[in-house]
């Protein structure tokens, strides 16, 4: 039987990768320390596979065909796109997958569960997956089952679906017949804006939202998080804040328990999320 050995939620801001890979600027020391802390924590958990919930930013998926939720089940996957290399210095690489677990999460022989997932046999991961992986597992040596959520092209699934996704993933992982130590990772933002009037303010576009968001994770408050993250409320927080919903999936995947570590680390890019749930 597979078991979830830990749940983590982190930022995937690609400017963080561009800023930190050549050394740590003094104002990002706390971010670097949090990534180091998470990396050491992950190494200590000895995960055999990572089930990762993240949101493609129009690199693999475009509005001609936009699934709400999609699971990748390829044995290996490209990660990093040419325009991300151009913009962020993010080099294209390969990441191993886990087709057996991916197929199981889809439902097995039948797509017979409460989630009518789309699937991909040739997913190509973008920075929303790759940046957290590079910080958490620098060797990229742990297979990944990518779970794509649409947080960038409205209509976006309601928050309750992200909570249900977390519960579903926890149950499905527990029912996988083979032994696997599974780490669940969520990738997203707190209040964040890009391509709008409040982009690059040098601080969070909505500190009040960030404070509440961190407290939902710290208190294990799934209901509070779901009740306060409508599309309109997230837009008020910033027009790229929808990917906070992936952390609601993390919270639910951890059974709704309080996070042992929950922080919105202040930076010139806004408050960056770092969450960790311990399962034992």
């Amino acid at each position, binding site marked *: 039987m597979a078991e979830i050995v830990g749940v983590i939620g982190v930022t995937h801001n690609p400017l963080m990768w561009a800023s930190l890979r050549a050394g740590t600027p003094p104002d990002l020391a706390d971010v670097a320390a949090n990534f180091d802390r998470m990396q050491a924590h992950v190494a200590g958990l000895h995960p055999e596979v990572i089930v990762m919930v993240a949101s493609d930013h129009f690199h693999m998926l475009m509005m001609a065909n936009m699934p709400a939720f999609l699971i990748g089940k390829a044995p290996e996957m490209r990660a990093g796109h040419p*325009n991300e290399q151009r*913009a962020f210095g993010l080099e294209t690489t390969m990441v191993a997958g886990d087709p057996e677990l991916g197929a199981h999460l889809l439902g097995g022989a039948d797509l017979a569960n409460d989630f009518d997932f789309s699937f991909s046999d040739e997913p190509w991961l973008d920075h929303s997956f790759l940046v957290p992986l590079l910080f958490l597992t620098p060797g990229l040596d742990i297979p990944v089952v990518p779970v794509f959520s649409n947080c960038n092209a409205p209509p976006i699934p309601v928050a309750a679906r992200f909570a249900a996704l977390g519960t579903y993933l926890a149950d499905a992982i527990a029912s996988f017949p083979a032994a696997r130590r599974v780490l669940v990772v969520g990738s997203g933002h707190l209040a964040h804006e890009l*391509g*709008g009037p409040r982009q690059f303010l040098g601080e969070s576009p909505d500190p009040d939202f960030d404070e509440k968001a961190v407290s939902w994770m710290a208190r294990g408050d799934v209901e509070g998080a779901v009740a306060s993250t409508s599309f309109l409320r997230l837009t008020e927080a910033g027009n790229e804040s929808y990917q906070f919903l992936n952390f609601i999936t993390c919270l639910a995947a951890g059974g709704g328990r309080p996070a042992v570590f929950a922080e919105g680390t202040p930076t010139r890019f806004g408050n960056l999320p770092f969450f960790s749930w311990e399962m034992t």
Partner: protein
Amino acid sequence: MSRYMVNKLMWEVDRSDDALASFKKDTAAFLDDWESLAERPVPPYPDGGHLTDGERAAVEARDYGALYAMGANPFLLWQFARSVSVPDEMGIDDLISSFRESAAPHGYPDFAT
């Protein structure tokens, strides 16, 4: 429909170095070619499309505020603006401030497609 086409154009320009280079070199010629591609669709994901006159004018003028007001996807719009305008037309700091100023009067337009 057309909001999608603006997004599709920005997406196709930014995703490949060749497309970006030819868009920057001769935007009108690129757009003519892009519109003609839509007449020769290759399944299942045809390249090219059609823009309204207003959309085409905003694209040719690099009028990011107008595209924002039309409901272009903010993420795609920012990627497109940065790739097209920096560094040849302006530095990143100038783009950040001019983009912010041009978007501000329009608040938060509906950008669903």
